[in-house]
Every structure is written in C-alpha cells, then in structure tokens.
C-alpha cells in the first residue's frame, strides 16, 4: 500500500526583497505519512512547515525532490482528488454564505446535485454551523471561519486531510471539538497531516510527529518512541510544615500560607519526603510525577539545533 504522503529530499529556495536575496527555506526534507495515521508536523515559526504544505499542494514548485500523494506525483491535479486542505488563516469569499461556499467547493469536485446537498447538510452539522449556514462569511468570527474551512476541506470526503494550524484562534471548547473531529477521521480510516503550535493537542491525538527546524527534519518518529515514560521530577505539595524541614531532599519552589511546593528530582527521595510528612504530623496535599512531554522534546530539539 502506498504511503498517503511521501516526500523525498525536498528543497526550495526563495529570492525575496527589492534587491533579491536568496534564502533556502527547505534543505532536503524527507519523511512519509502512512495511510490512516495522524501525523503532526512541528516546528518554530519560519521553520518551513507551511512551505512544505504549499509544495505538497502544488502552490509552490520545489527546486528539487519528489512528492507523492497516494503514489501520485503532487504536480498532477488528480493527486488532490482524495485530499482536503484547511489553510492556516482561512481566507474565503466573504460575500458568500457558508452554504454557498460549500456548494462552490463541491462544484470543483464535480459532485452531483443530490450528493452535494446531502453532503453540505451533513458537514454543516458536523462543524456546528447549521444555524449560521445562511449568513455571509464576513459576519463569522475567527473560530466560525475555521469551522467553515474545515467543512470545505471535507466536501470531497477525502482520504487525506491536511490541516495547517487547525486549532489556532479556537476557544478551548472549539479546540476540543476539532480535536474530536480529527480523532473521528482516524476512526473512519482517514489520514491526517497537520501542523500546530499547541503541542498538548498534538501529543493528545498524533500517532507520529516530525520536527522541522531551519528547513531540516531534526526528529521524526512515533510519539511513544519519542516521548519516554521516564519521570523527570516529582512535584509534592505539603501543608503544616516549614520549608526547612525538607532541606536537602528537594527544591522548595514556593511557600504560600502553610503550604510548600517541592520539586524532587531523585525518585528515592520522594519516599523520604512522604515518610517525613507522616512522622512530623504534616499533611500531604498532592504528589504528581512529571514525565517527559512533547513540549520538553520540542524545546530541547529546537534549542539544541
């Protein structure tokens, strides 16, 4: 079975400015996204994430390298038949209503009238825009535009969904809804390729990630392989005892009222602290081991690079 996306040695150089200055944005990107995966593409601003997506969609012509979508070269418009795309800040014809806009995008896929009406109704319900469906898009909030954008990306019932910052500008409830929709895509067997700055979301839903820094992929792999279960430190909140009690056992991060927050790096010392609290008649309020997160890996990788 062909990969949903396969990118090999992708290079792109831009000449920008009044006195054109050449800058290499992508410096030999290689990665693949398997069918049915949720793949997170991470990187700091200006790393080349959007440029990669634009190359994938044929909006930018690469200088070198190959890109295939389900085995078809990216340059053929047919490669985009099984693909749905949501741009970073969705820009649409703001004088159209969401229903008209979806009908227009459905026409670009040549959907028949009956199928088109049924699918538009289903998508409006899926993204929660049924009540605003006949309002012009210029009256939409950013979050509503993002939902309309997601609906247009799904109008062809794509096998591959490419989402550029789909969670940007959403409130926490909206973010959760979009996350749930993305997870539902996976259940339906769709492949999702998306970029996001919100690493907790990526960690929650992605199967695999790639980190791009300065136009190069610096880390790639399954989320479980990258993020170890290793405990970095344990946060212990204790009440009724002065911070000096725990001298040498852990770092006292804060003391508010009679509560002390300790950060303990040595796992063996956690038991010692718990015993001490018990012996001195203090109270143990909370104890939470902090394992490595995607954010830790991201920050470490970007800083190191």
């Amino acid at each position, binding site marked *: 079975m062909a990969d949903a996306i396969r990118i090999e040695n992708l290079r792109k150089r*831009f000449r920008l400015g009044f006195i054109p200055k050449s800058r290499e944005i992508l410096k030999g990107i290689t990665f693949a996204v398997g069918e049915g995966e949720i793949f997170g593409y991470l990187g700091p601003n200006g790393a080349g994430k959007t440029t990669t997506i*634009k190359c994938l*969609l*044929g*909006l*930018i*012509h690469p200088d070198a390298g190959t890109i295939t979508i389900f085995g078809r070269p990216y340059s053929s*418009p*047919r*490669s*985009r*038949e099984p*693909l749905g*795309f949501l*741009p970073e*800040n*969705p*820009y*649409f*014809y703001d*004088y*159209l209503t969401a229903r008209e806009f979806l009908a*227009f*995008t459905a*026409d*670009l*896929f*040549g959907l028949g009238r009956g199928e088109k009406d049924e699918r538009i109704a289903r998508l409006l319900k899926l993204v929660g825009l049924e009540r605003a469906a006949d309002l012009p898009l210029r009256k939409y909030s950013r979050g509503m535009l993002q939902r309309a*954008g997601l609906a*247009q990306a799904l109008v*062809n019932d794509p096998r591959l969904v*490419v989402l550029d910052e789909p969670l940007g500008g959403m409130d926490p409830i909206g973010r959760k809804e979009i996350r749930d929709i993305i997870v539902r895509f996976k259940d339906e067997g769709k492949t999702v390729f998306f970029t996001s700055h919100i690493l907790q979301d990526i960690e929650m839903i992605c199967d695999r990630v790639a980190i791009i820094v300065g136009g190069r992929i610096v880390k790639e792999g399954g989320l479980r392989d990258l993020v170890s279960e290793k405990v970095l430190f344990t946060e212990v909140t204790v009440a009724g005892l002065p911070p000096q009690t725990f001298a040498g056992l852990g770092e006292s991060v804060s003391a508010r009222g009679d509560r002390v927050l300790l950060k303990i790096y040595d796992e063996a010392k956690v038991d010692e602290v718990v015993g001490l609290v018990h012996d001195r008649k203090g109270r143990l309020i909370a104890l939470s081991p902090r394992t490595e997160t995607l954010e830790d890996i991201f920050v470490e990788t970007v800083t190191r690079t």
Partner: protein
Amino acid sequence: MKIGAIAGITFKEAKRDRVLYLLFFFAALGIVASRVLAVLTVGDRIKIIKDVGLASISVFGVLMAILIGTGLVYKEIDKKTIYTLLAKPLHRSEFILGKFLGLVLTLLVMTAAMAVIFLAIVYAHTARVEGSLLVAVAYIFLELILITAVAVLFSSFSTPILSSLFALAFYLIGHLSWGLELIIKKMRPGTGKALVRALYLVLPDLENFNFKTEVVHGLPIPPAIYLSSFLYGVCYTAFILGLAVLIFRRRDFI
C-alpha cells in the same frame, strides 16, 4: 464544470463591484446625452446619436474590462483565497479560463444593457429598430473580450495599478497601430520597411473591430472583412490567454 464554477463565482464577485455600476451609469449618461449633443449640432442628428452612443459603449466597456479585469487574479492571490482553490483538483489553466469567462459574462450583460439603452434612444429618434447597429456592438464586445484577456494576463503577475496602465497602453497602441500600415505603404523596400512590418504584426490592431463608421453611415462591409476580424479577435485572445496560463503556471504562491 470546474471552469463554470470559477466563472460563476467571478461573475458574482464582479457584479458586486461598485466601479461596474459607476461606469455603467456614465455609459448610460453618455448614450442619453448624445440626444442633447445631436440637438446642438449642425448636420445629421441621428449620426451623432449613433456615433456618440457606440463610442460610449466602447470606451466604458473597455474601462470596465480593464478596471475589473486587472484586479481579478491579483485579488485572489492578495486575499489568499487562491490557496483553497488550487488545493482542489483544479488545473491552473482552468482557474485562469474560469476567471476570464466570468468577466466576459459580466461584460456581456453590461454590453447588452448598454446596447438596449442605445437602441431605445435611436428608436426614440427614428421610430425604427436598427439591427445593423448590433453588428458594431458585437465587434465592440469582441474587442472587450480581447482586452479582458489582456487584463487577466497582466493581473496574473502584476498589481492592479500597473496592470491597468499596461492594459490601457495595449488599448491605445491597438488603436494607433493602424498608422504603421500607412507608413509601410509609403516606405521604400528594405530593412526599415521589414522592421516596421514586423512591429505591425506584433502589435495589436484593434481597429479591426471598429465598424462604427461603416454602420453609422450605412457603408457596405464585405463578409470576408467580418470573418477576418472575427478570426483575428479569436486568435489574438487565445494567444494572450495562452501566455497568461503559461505565466500563471510557473508562479509560486508564497
């Protein structure tokens, strides 16, 4: 189907443009005012009405084609709506053709509306519907189609202001280039004549679409002239559109 969808959305967008209605208002004003001019003029009044009416349709039609056409593709790139469109299974040539046809449709509606006003004014003066005037209007429309293609061409790589200037220059050169034909006839054979002839071949000759004088004065026009003008318009438009597609296909949308 896809070209039709793009053309439909372009038509919808163009008819929202206030510039279109402003120009239509002035065109209508020009056509109606021709009656006043006719009263003030010594000579054949109906010829003045026809002359001024056809000139109004031509000039304001060209302004519509240039002012709206030059923003068409540029706006899609500037507002980034093009990202969503080109991410669909759409050839860039289909996008350009859709944009072009959408504006052609807009101009067809506008030209038809101006022609109706024009024929009504002529009818009010002569109590006759002069179908022959429609021939001149049809060739004006053919010229507008070519100007639209030129506007779309410039719009695919330049800003609206620069594109408008380029398209206007194309229009002016197109109406003055017939002078080269006269020069060629008077020149002695040689390199100079060959160069001027080459220049004449490259430059557009929009006078090919000008049948106003013949129609207004009731002069006979051989069918071969109609046909050659029609073919000239079709071929030149196809050439310009081909060029627009070629440039647009090579563009990066950063």
